[in-house]
């Protein structure tokens, strides 16, 4: 599983927007690496900045009005320095992305097969007839029955689960090194969810695709990921392997999240974290979590903790990390 | 005729005005007062709309104060040399009868405004009532009323007006009636659409269960909540009414001479376009200004009231 060079190396990624109240930093100094065949999870509540992080990596954020700083190293180049045509060559070929609402990700007026054909034609040099065969073959590979007939159908004739398979098929048809999956199963039934997730897991395992899995669902994260990053209010607050995160979370926020999960055995009460994640216009001083933190100290309000390594492959941004 | 669906499911009505949905929160008297101030503030942020409102009020003032503002009697012939271009004495020049065009323009505002406002008001009252009944009671009444509205809607306004004037004869009163009839259908349609949505709201159900009579429900509870889109439609239709009236008087079917009407003044001017272009072109500027102002006003009202309604 381990290759020496990371497939994706994000360093100090920052995404900022201007507003009437001044610049708003939706993503603040996020750094992480993903290795070949590794599935890394990005967890956080809505609004924590997870989707923006993945969109920034793909260069999908319009700037202006957004401002992006930092470095995103992929294939030996910093993606943030590339112009639009160069990015377009990478998108869909070396990095693929699938989104939350699969039915909305397909153009309603074009046939599904034609859209897949277009995507492939952009990156593969083969003649159209050969690509058409590829389309059918890909649809079959992601588990769509009667692929030849289905390729001539329109998106509205596909269910959510089917559509997400189509998106995955489109994503992997050019065998990318990195797959970014932004809440890929949130809009799907639980049963379909399992199938889609299995597909993704198979990609990592068999093809060595590096996966960045963005989700707010800890259950999915625990099933799928090797490593997890926890985001809060635009910052990464903890990073560890999946086993460690669930067994011994270091950051109070992570601990709170895990305590919120319903358990089969327990005292019957659902845990909760008091308060709400702060909006970007009203960020607390120092550690952004401190107003809601059960173990906060005066130091936490004054000084923002950096993401400190606690052990190999483990880091947390908390002055009191490791304290239970 | 079916309401078309855009790519995102938005629907447009005849003029491409996007049709909105009414607000979810019921309106009441105190909320209305605070709401008005907030609405005004948002409205004021749109420069076009404010300009439109200012010009419109200016035209109203012009019409009302016509006897004071007009330098000459609009009907008086020979107050200047005929077909003379704009001069100090006659800002808009004179027409073929030697009448001062500026004064005729000022008085012409009266016809335009009277027709525009009265016709639309009439159409609104009738159309909204029909829409309320049709939407609220549903069933056969709804089908019948809407079929008739569909039929009316199929007529281009000018053509309907021409047909009605063939029956009724010419003159301001008939122009008003003809234009009003033409605008009933759009009001009925818009109202009915919104009523259908509001009808399902829980507070209506609550009122019904409390024993409030149907008529009271319609006028006290349903109507205030569908009012905003109706007002927007009204503002937009006034410009259409004025255009229609000027078109009719251009064709000679409006108020008879010598009453000054912008449309007819332009028609009379067309004969002299070569030697005295001002006779036809200048009254048109006034007409266009009025219409631009009303369109901007209507757009501004729609942008102010609509987004609040939709979200």
């Amino acid at each position, binding site marked *: 599983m381990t290759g020496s060079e990371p497939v994706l190396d994000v360093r100090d990624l920052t995404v900022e927007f201007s507003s009437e109240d001044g610049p708003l930093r939706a993503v603040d100094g996020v750094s992480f690496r993903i290795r070949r065949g590794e599935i890394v999870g990005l967890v956080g509540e809505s609004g924590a900045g997870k989707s923006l992080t993945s969109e920034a990596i793909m260069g999908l954020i319009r700037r202006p009005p957004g401002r992006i700083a930092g470095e995103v190293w992929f294939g030996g180049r910093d993606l943030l320095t590339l112009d639009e045509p160069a990015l*377009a060559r990478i*998108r*869909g070929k070396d990095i*693929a*992305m699938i*989104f939350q*609402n699969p039915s*909305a990700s397909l*153009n309603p*007026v*074009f046939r599904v097969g034609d*859209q897949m054909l277009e995507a492939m034609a*952009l990156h593969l040099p083969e003649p159209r007839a050969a690509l058409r065969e590829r389309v059918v073959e890909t649809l079959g590979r992601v588990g769509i029955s009667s692929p030849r007939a289905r390729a001539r159908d329109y998106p*509205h*004739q596909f269910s959510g689960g089917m559509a997400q398979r189509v*998106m995955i098929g489109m*994503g992997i048809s050019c065998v990318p090194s990195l797959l970014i999956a932004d809440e890929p199963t949130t809009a799907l039934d639980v049963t379909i969810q399992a199938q889609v997730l299995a597909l993704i897991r198979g990609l990592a395992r068999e093809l060595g695709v590096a996966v960045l899995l963005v989700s707010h669902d800890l259950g999915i994260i625990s099933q799928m990921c090797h490593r997890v990053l926890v985001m809060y209010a635009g910052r990464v607050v903890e990073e560890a392997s999946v086993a460690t995160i669930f067994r011994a979370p270091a950051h109070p926020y992570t601990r709170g999240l895990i305590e919120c999960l319903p358990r089969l055995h327990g005292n019957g009460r659902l845990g909760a974290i008091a308060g709400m994640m702060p909006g970007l216009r009203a960020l607390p001083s120092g550690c952004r979590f401190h107003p809601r933190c059960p173990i906060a100290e005066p130091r936490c309000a004054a000084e923002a903790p950096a993401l400190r390594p606690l052990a190999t492959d483990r880091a947390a941004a908390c002055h009191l990390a490791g304290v239970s | *005729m*079916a309401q*078309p669906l*855009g*790519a*995102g499911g*938005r629907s*447009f009505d*005849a003029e*491409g005005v*996007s049709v909105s949905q009414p607000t979810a929160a019921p309106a009441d008297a105190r909320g209305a007062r605070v709401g008005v101030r907030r609405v005004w503030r948002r409205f004021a942020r749109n420069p076009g709309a404010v300009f439109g409102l200012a010009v419109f009020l200016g035209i109203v003032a012009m019409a009302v104060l016509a006897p004071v503002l007009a330098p000459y009697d609009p009907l008086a012939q020979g107050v200047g040399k005929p077909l003379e271009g704009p001069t100090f004495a006659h800002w808009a020049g004179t027409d073929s009868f030697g009448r001062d065009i500026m004064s005729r323009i000022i008085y012409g505002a009266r016809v335009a405004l009277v027709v525009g406002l009265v016709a639309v008001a009439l159409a609104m009252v009738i159309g909204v009532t029909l829409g309320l009944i049709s939407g609220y009671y549903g069933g056969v009444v709804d089908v019948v009323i809407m*079929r*008739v509205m*569909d*039929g009316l809607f*199929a*007529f*281009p*306004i*000018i*053509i309907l007006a*021409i*047909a009605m004037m*063939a*029956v009724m004869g010419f003159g301001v009163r008939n122009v008003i009636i003809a234009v009003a009839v033409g605008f009933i259908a759009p009001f009925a349609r818009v109202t009915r659409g919104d009523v259908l949505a509001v009808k399902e709201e829980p507070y209506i159900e609550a009122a019904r269960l409390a024993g409030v009579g149907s008529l009271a429900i319609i006028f006290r509870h349903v109507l205030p909540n569908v009012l905003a889109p109706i007002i927007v439609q009204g503002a937009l239709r006034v410009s259409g009414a004025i255009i229609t009236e000027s*078109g009719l008087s*251009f*064709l*000679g*079917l409006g108020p008879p001479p010598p009453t000054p009407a912008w*449309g007819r003044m*332009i028609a009379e001017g*067309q004969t002299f*376009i070569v030697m005295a*272009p001002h006779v*036809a072109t200048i009254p*048109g500027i006034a*007409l*266009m200004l009025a*219409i*631009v102002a009303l*369109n*901007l006003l209507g757009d501004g009202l729609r942008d102010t009231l609509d987004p609040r309604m939709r979200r």
Partner: protein
Amino acid sequence: MVRFVVSRIGQTLAVLFTVSVIIFALMRMIPGDPVLMRLGDDFTQEAYERLRTQLGFDRSIATQYLIWIRDVLSGDLGDSFLNHERVAKLVLDAFIPTLTLVVASVIVGLLIAVPSGIIAAMRKDSAWDYGSMGFAIFVYSMPAFWKGIVLIWIFSVYLGWFPAMGYVHPWTDLSQGLWRLVLPAVTLGTFFSGLVARIIRSSLLEVLDQDYIKAARARGVRQAALVYRHALANALIPVVTVIGLQFGTLLGGAVLTETVFAIPGMGRLSVSAILNRDYSVVQGAILVGVFAVVVVNLLVDLTYAFLNPRIRVA
């Protein structure tokens, strides 16, 4: 799709029925006794009775209506009171120039509006955007007949580039026909473009915001293809419907524009018929005009259904 087509056709028939009733009722409301008018000076009680029966006025209103409908459907719109020509022929001869003008105006309008709307959307909130949208409001607000006169003044009287009046069928003489159509088509077409440009702009902006555009960009589709293929294909569909909805308005505008440019179309026919109290002509003209509007709306709706895969392939 079939269900949609059937229901739309049914709706159209209902509307046509209502329209015919309205027209019939209007014409019956005209003051004066039509039998008397026809007799004129040859009035005798006997001739009156005879003509009355002959014209069917002794039957019930409903029967009269049915007779009228039967005549209409077989192409008989009556005779012109004035010159005793067949109304059907008069109306058809007048309808063609009007239709030609409307079609030319739509073409001109689209040629202006489509690029203008696209540019405004792509450069939202720039000078281009405000400028072209301001221009759109401007031309949309100008009354068609005044605009026509102003255009005549500038391009005909002053510059002498185009003729001020007259009409020639383009298929009879292409260059003459088109040359004479320019000013009237621009008059009506700019009005149409003012409306359509704004719709294209807002439709395109809405489409560009959609997830499938973002997803397509994430697949590597280039900017140009995104806008001109993916986005426009969706954004232009509502425009088709607007054309249909506006056909009626355009017809009304054509009526006025014809008067300015002395085009022998429906406008001139109806107005002179009214002034001369030639009511069969008025009735026939309005009937044909409104029927055309209704049919065009039906065709447009069907075209929309064809273009929108959600309806075409249920």
